[in-house]
């Protein structure tokens, strides 16, 4: 058993941490308040090569691996979840489907600009009536004169309404397979007539991350925009979500680590009853619990990433990592606010933002209930 990262991964972790602390941290409070997507920061993340980490150099990537991507996501999330999810969704949901299922031409056209960090893309699965039951997609696509005609809508879609957004890959019903719907993936470029990118949602957290509703009204895209084989869209997005879960787990670990670091500093500095509050066992034990849970979640997440990098099946491990990491992150954030007392409730202190940012981790890319269903299914074989 070898639990160590490579020296290059360790050095890269330091670089991303340095970037997060120097470039993102000073802006995080303002971004949280204005809810604006910081294009300049995201472009700098692109310059650092973050959006191309797991992709080969011939597609504009860094030729690293999934583990290294998780390191970057963790380090960003330690400082700011909005930028971490922008990276996670940009790579995991925007670029990964093209890399895994795209033709050579599609990779050159759509993957390269994403991997180079010049553009962002999204993945549109969730619909107003189809969330956990993503197979219940109602968006429809049919072929007419060599083009797909798309009608329907998507909700809660990340990274499609930014100034850098290039396209969204959607799931759409393209026919029937006996009693079940046939679902396919189609690439829809931003700016296609009939494709409306809606207003930003007002959210509890992740304020600087772009989340919008999408509407498709007779949208025409060339037939060649079909991604992967017709009818494989459902199977394909399930594959995408496995990796995405590990990456969300990395985000959760970063957030929990951020809560821990902030709380340790505060517990040493804040004095009540004549001593630092960290000397009170009730506070110290909270720190011990947050630290222990964070470390366990980190082990689960990087084991998932390690399995993914070796091409091993990791469905169950991915769900476990996501489930555990997101739940301990919410707990860590709640306890971090508690350790900060009244100041923890004030937005000037990062833990206040961390608390609001944490909740969605138990919802996005499969709710905690869905993760438990998936894990149980693997156990029971139903």
């Amino acid at each position, binding site marked *: 058993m070898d639990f160590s990262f490579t020296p*290059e991964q360790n*050095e*890269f972790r330091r*670089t991303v941490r*340095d*970037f997060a602390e120097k470039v993102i941290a000073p802006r995080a409070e303002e971004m949280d308040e204005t809810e604006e997507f910081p294009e300049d920061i995201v472009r700098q993340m692109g*310059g*650092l*090569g973050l959006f191309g*980490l797991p992709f080969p*150099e011939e597609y504009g990537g*860094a*030729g*690293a691996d999934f583990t*290294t991507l998780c390191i970057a996501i963790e380090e960003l999330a330690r400082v700011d979840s909005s930028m971490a999810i922008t990276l996670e969704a940009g790579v995991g949901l925007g670029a990964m489907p093209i890399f895994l299922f795209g033709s050579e031409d599609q990779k050159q056209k759509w993957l390269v600009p994403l991997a180079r960090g010049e553009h962002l893309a999204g993945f549109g699965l969730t619909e107003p009536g189809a969330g956990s039951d993503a197979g219940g997609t109602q968006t429809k696509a049919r072929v007419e004169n060599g083009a797909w005609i798309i009608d329907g809508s998507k909700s809660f879609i990340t990274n499609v309404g930014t100034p850098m957004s290039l396209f969204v890959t959607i799931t759409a019903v393209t026919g029937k397979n006996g009693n079940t719907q046939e679902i396919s993936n189609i690439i829809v470029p931003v700016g296609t007539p009939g494709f409306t990118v809606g207003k930003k949602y007002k959210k509890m957290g992740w304020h600087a991350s772009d989340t919008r509703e999408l509407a498709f009204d007779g949208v025409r895209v060339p037939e060649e925009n079909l991604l992967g084989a017709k009818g494989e869209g459902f199977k394909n997005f399930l594959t995408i979500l496995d990796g995405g879960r590990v990456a969300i787990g990395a985000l959760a670990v970063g957030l929990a680590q951020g809560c821990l670091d902030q709380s340790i500093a505060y517990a040493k500095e804040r004095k009540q009853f004549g001593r630092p509050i960290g000397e009170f066992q009730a506070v110290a034990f909270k720190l011990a619990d947050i630290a222990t849970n964070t470390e366990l979640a980190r082990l689960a997440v990087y084991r998932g990433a390690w399995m993914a990098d070796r091409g091993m099946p990791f469905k169950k491990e991915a769900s476990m990592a996501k489930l555990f990491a997101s739940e301990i992150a919410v707990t860590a954030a709640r306890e971090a606010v508690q350790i900060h007392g009244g100041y923890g409730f004030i937005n000037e202190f990062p833990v206040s933002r961390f608390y609001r940012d944490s909740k969605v981790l138990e919802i996005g890319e499969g709710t905690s209930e869905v993760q438990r269903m998936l894990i149980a299914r693997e156990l029971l074989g139903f």
Partner: protein
Amino acid sequence: MNVVVLVKQIPDPANPYELVDGRLKRGVAQKVMDPGDEYGVEAALRLVDQFGGEVNVISMGPAAAMEAIRRALSMGAHKGVLVTDDALGGADALATARVLAAAIKRSEFDLVIAGVESTDGSTGVVPQMVAELLGVPQSTFAKEIEAKDSSLTIKRQTAAGYDMVECPLPAVITVTAGVNEPRYPTFKGIMQAKSKPVDTVSLGDLGLGGDDAKPTQSVDAVNPAPERGAGEKFEDDGTGAAKVADLLKQLKVI
């Protein structure tokens, strides 16, 4: 244009430091390339982007200083030289300059870039000594650099603004923190750095002996600055401004 950058490895300034016998304790875990030297590396990379050539990074220090060279290589520098030798422990600025000058002379160079002063030792004299030993002109405190084929113009930061200084190449320049925004190493850069050529050389390899490394100055004692007193308080009864002005005059501030 072949550019040499002088980089120093220092204990991470983000952490508290410790002195042992008046010398900085260097055995601490977290060491970094002097943040002030990142500007030099960036400036060199930009010049080489513009004119072609190579960036050669040179450092003198203990074996661990190799990490500072690696950092510069991951930012994009082409090769590095580390001068390390037990006889150099406790070297002062002049000894350092002798060693660096000897290392620089081993290959052709058009320009040497250094920081204005290091973050830990901060004597701010090594680059000047290096220029003298190399027998080339020096331009210091550059906040902007513009190079032509055989000469270089810098904007030299002054208290009032800047001077325009032109000098022929080869030359030594020092750069301020305002000169550019240093890039972060990418993962690709970190991987590529692994296979870039680096030389580790000793005093003997440079044709120097123990005498060249002997300190010419030594620090006898290091004392913290005295705590500030309570200061003087003036109640403003209408004459406050005049009293403050008198005091400032007395202190020769105005």
